[in-house]
């Protein structure tokens, strides 16, 4: 005799199993797609339109699993590739963070396979954008979509209101910091405690110059890196940052900038989307270079660090293989790209798009893209030059440096040790 308790339990288990076995409707071709254009991303509408368009053009059903990128999602995607369970088309990072994807051997190499079959495809893209996708082994595994750029966003109206000259050179920059402090406005919006990233990158770039910045840590700690961190300390001691910067991330500085409580904000094009209502009173400039810095004023941190990966399995499949390529073509077509660029103000990866023609972009957004286009050097950010644990070591070390508890040299040498340990695996 089974007790009623067990009976209900059994019934429930059976019904649950039954529910899981309900099969979906099938189309000619089913494509699983993942992108970073999830729910709250500004480009999500443009992206959704693009896939609906695609579905009406071909007999394809797209299972879109796009999601905002956070740690849990990163883990999921990385593991999906590791477990041979990857989506057919995946948009993911193409910098250091890509190693789990590429090392899983489940992605197709464009250089080795796809470009030879589809030669016209390669020509669509700007050479620089493709080059940045090149992996350590010389191959290209990701097709770039939109790129990003970083710079110094400024609230022009605040400068005008208090009669302060724009920070187009170092002297003005220093003056601005002093003057804004007098007016009780935070000069530089940075959260040194949690996300000093953009400030970090700019500081190392202006003090070390593109060459030292790009050298990374593997051949020793470049002096420019030490100088860069010390620059941040100097700014901290000048009270350039918010009072509670040691407990801030990126959200608060940006919010304060929006509310005109911050004059200058080192950020990237993605921040422009959130600040759209202020675009008329905003401008974007490169980070000024101190006299003792080795960098050039027009060096910009920008690049393409994400792209579309095609699953090996999907590519080998007769029907899917072709469809996936068509989808990539569609998503990087001029029309779709224009829509996406208008939505997220990023750098287009394909030839033939002139941002000055895109009506959906504001003045400051165009300025930003042109900053990148006219730059003497385009440099990928610091976290693309060294391994993640090494970068995190520096990030964690910044508060200690500005508070005087550790020296920049100490922190960087510790980071270097971590970097060398990470590289030991790559033999």
């Amino acid at each position, binding site marked *: 005799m089974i007790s009623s308790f067990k009976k209900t339990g059994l019934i429930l288990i059976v019904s649950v199993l039954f529910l899981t076995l309900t099969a979906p409707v099938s189309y000619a071709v089913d494509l699983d797609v993942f992108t970073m254009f999830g729910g709250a991303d500004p480009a999500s509408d443009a992206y959704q339109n693009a896939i609906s368009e695609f579905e009406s053009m071909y007999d394809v059903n797209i299972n879109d699993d796009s999601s905002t990128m956070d740690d849990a999602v990163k883990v*999921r995607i990385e593991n999906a590739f590791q477990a041979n369970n990857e989506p057919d088309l995946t948009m993911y990072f193409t910098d250091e963070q890509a190693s789990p994807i590429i090392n899983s051997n489940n992605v197709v190499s464009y250089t080795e396979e796809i470009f030879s079959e589809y030669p016209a495809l390669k020509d669509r893209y700007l050479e620089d954008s493709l080059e940045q996708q090149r992996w350590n082994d010389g191959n290209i595994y990701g097709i770039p979509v939109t790129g990003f750029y970083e710079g110094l966003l400024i609230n022009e109206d605040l400068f005008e209101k208090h009669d302060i000259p724009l920070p187009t050179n170092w002297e003005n920059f220093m003056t601005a910091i002093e003057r804004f402090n007098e007016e009780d406005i935070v000069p530089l919006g940075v959260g040194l405690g949690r996300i000093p990233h953009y400030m970090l990158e700019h500081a190392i770039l202006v003090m070390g110059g593109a060459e030292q910045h790009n050298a990374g840590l593997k051949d020793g700690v470049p002096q420019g890196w030490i100088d860069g961190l010390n620059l941040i300390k100097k700014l901290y001691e000048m009270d350039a940052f918010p009072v509670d910067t040691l407990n801030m991330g990126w959200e608060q500085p940006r919010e304060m900038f929006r509310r005109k409580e911050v004059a200058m904000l080192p950020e990237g094009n993605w921040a422009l989307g959130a600040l759209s209502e202020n675009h008329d009173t905003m401008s974007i400039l490169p980070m000024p270079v101190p006299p003792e810095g080795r960098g050039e004023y027009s060096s910009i941190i920008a690049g393409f660090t994400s792209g579309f990966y095609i699953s090996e399995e999907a590519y080998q499949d007769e029907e899917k293989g072709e469809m996936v390529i068509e989808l990539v073509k569609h998503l990087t077509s001029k029309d779709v790209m224009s829509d996406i660029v208008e939505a997220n103000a990023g750098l287009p990866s394909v030839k033939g798009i002139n941002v000055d023609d895109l009506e959906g972009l504001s003045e400051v957004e165009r300025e930003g893209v042109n900053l990148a286009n006219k730059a003497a050097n385009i440099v990928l950010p610091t976290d693309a030059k060294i391994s993640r644990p090494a970068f995190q070591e520096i990030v964690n070390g910044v508060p200690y440096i500005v508070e005087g508890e550790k020296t920049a040299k100490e922190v960087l040498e510790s980071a270097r040790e971590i970097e060398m340990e990470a590289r030991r695996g790559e033999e």
Partner: protein
Amino acid sequence: MMDKFKKIFVKSNIGRFFIYVFLIFWALTTIAPLVWVLNNSFKDTDQIMDSPFGFAESLNWANYQKAVERVDIIRSYINSFIMSGSATILVLLFGGMAAYILGRFEFRFKKFFTTIVALGLLIPAFSTIIPVYDLMIKLNLINTYPALILPHVASNLIFAIFVLSSYMSSLPDSIEEAAIVDGANRFQIFTKIIIPMSRPALATVAIFSFLWSYNDLFSALILVSDRSVRPIVVLLNEVSSRYGVDYGLQAAAVVLTIVPIFLVYLLLQDYIVKGLARQGSVKE
């Protein structure tokens, strides 16, 4: 005699007063956050940043509309209830069975099992997620209900066994022995005596198991991310992006997530009260 009674009466009243003061004070601290979240759900993000603790101007349902558009609300609720509900039922069933043994029997390898239970309490969720994910891939269960149900059963079993065995162990021997004399076997004792007598503890375990399963965002994102099976808690993740957190939307998402749980809790509340009434009439 009269003085003694007066003393008790007066003491009782003043004491009672202070008791209520303290209880109400604590209640205010626990209600305030909920009111705050509810209040914020009617503001948009700008208003929240401008005055995070001020009253909303009007009943602005925009955030709720946005939330409903972002995820398929009905589907997500159903998914949540199926997954968390199934997990809870299995936890009560298997947990109750194991707790009965561990709480009331002595046998050779008992210590082994109790140690494992204690061990289970210590395992951090972040360590188990990847091996569990790999396992689900091998069993081809990713993005199906069991993918989330099974690990949740396992982690809540620990808590269940802890609480239930403690409760069951303190139920008097005499009850079982009397039943055996009457010719009952262990199954019957378990289902007809022990379980009913453990109602309050079972309700407690049910509530918290359901709650933890329902609120578990991290595992849900990894094991059941597909739109057709994902639970409502995922909505909480969809409110943020590289562009920032939409605080108004998040507040609405929190409210939408809480409401069903609240109802479930009220339901189980009554169950506890009934259990107590029974308890009072049980003779030693």
